[in-house]
């Protein structure tokens, strides 16, 4: 999705991975988790995950955009 990211609230993890072998721009972050999140308002987005690792089916909440990338965190259950 190349459009400007819209404000988002929450969603469910559709798939995820922890990246160990990072591209040069993200070497300092590795290992880090990325996920494709199915948004409550519809559609999916590729996001970075903050904090605790998530698995498929986990509820996640939108935290913020950094450099156009949405960051999500596992929702409090």
């Amino acid at each position: 999705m190349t459009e400007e990211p819209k404000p988002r609230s929450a969603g469910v993890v559709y798939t995820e991975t922890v990246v160990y072998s990072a591209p040069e721009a993200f070497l300092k972050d590795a290992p880090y988790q990325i996920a494709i999140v199915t948004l409550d308002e519809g559609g999916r987005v590729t996001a970075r995950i903050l904090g605790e690792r998530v698995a498929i089916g986990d509820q996640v909440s939108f935290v913020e955009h950094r450099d156009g990338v949405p960051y999500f965190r596992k929702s409090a259950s």
Partner: protein
Amino acid sequence: MRPVAVAAIGKTAFGAFPDRDLRSLAVEAGRKCLEDGHAGPGQVEALFLGNFAGPAFVGQSHLAPYVASGLGIQGVPATRFEAACASGGSAFFHAVSAVAAGLYDLVLVLGVEKMTSQPTPKVAEILASAGDLGGEMRAGATFPALFAMIARRHMHQYGTRREHLAAVAVKNHANGARNPQAHMRKVITLEQALAGKPVADPLTLYDCSMVSDGAAAVLLAPLERAAEFTSKPVRVLGIAQASDRFALDEKEDITTFPAVRAAAEKAYRMAGAGPADIEFAEVHDCFTIAEIIATEDLGFVKPGEGGPYCAQGSTALDGARPVNASGGLKAKGHPVGATGVAQICDVTAQIRGQAGDNQVRRHSLGLAENLGGSGATGVVTILGAA
């Protein structure tokens, strides 16, 4: 449309060749191919070149005439095709279309990539340009990460296990060890594959194909003229290319590649054949999960059954339907632009009965599947003894 044949083939070895440049690799493959067909460069009526990222990897543009000139081919169209990892397959598809339509008789299709002169992070960056730079890649994805997310979802939906992925690596390494032109000629055990260095969970180093240098070439001719060049012509029975949504987060279901399904359906219809008729296949195992999904998308097994299908030995060299008898991208190597053309060379060699230690038992009807990006391009070709 008239029938088209593969009249000659030629390949370089795949590997890391610090002393070789892009043009010398392409020229070697092209010359070997012309020699195989007892043809001269003056007979070639067009050059179709598959190359993913020569301008980024080696800084050279205008690649098709650059290669043609090195081969002594002049005065005819020389054009580059780019479709990420399906660049070679796409060049081949368009060349077959042109010969079938009667535009040319003799066409040289060449695929080449020179990747190892760049450091690994730069290679990763260049490969990443085949993904959506404004979305998934900006979030920190790499190609292994995209296929890792595909694998995770496949495991979740179908119960595919790490052992299934590892079984693909073990099989393709075993086949590659028998192939004198393969980049990686090392047998590995299931335990080794499972204990590989993590790249992007659940994929380890053993789930990923090689970064390689190499080139491959095919000479096409109308079937009626093929006998001028070979005693063993191989006919292009069916071929199609298709596209799909670009980024993974735009797809409804990431455990299947609709472009491959669409291309396979068309190619099967054109060939008057079905999945059950295919005796062996070379498929695009850029990552182990991609081979599992290929066997499902090509209709060899139902969705979700690709993992057990490989793990039980059905796709081994001596199995019921060998898949990647050459070692595949995993062990043979994956010089991106060369891959799709090399698959055609490998299937042709099998049909001719010239695959040496990698020869499959039943070899009259074979298939090649070439995938671009994370599935936005798919090319499927069915070849048979003429």
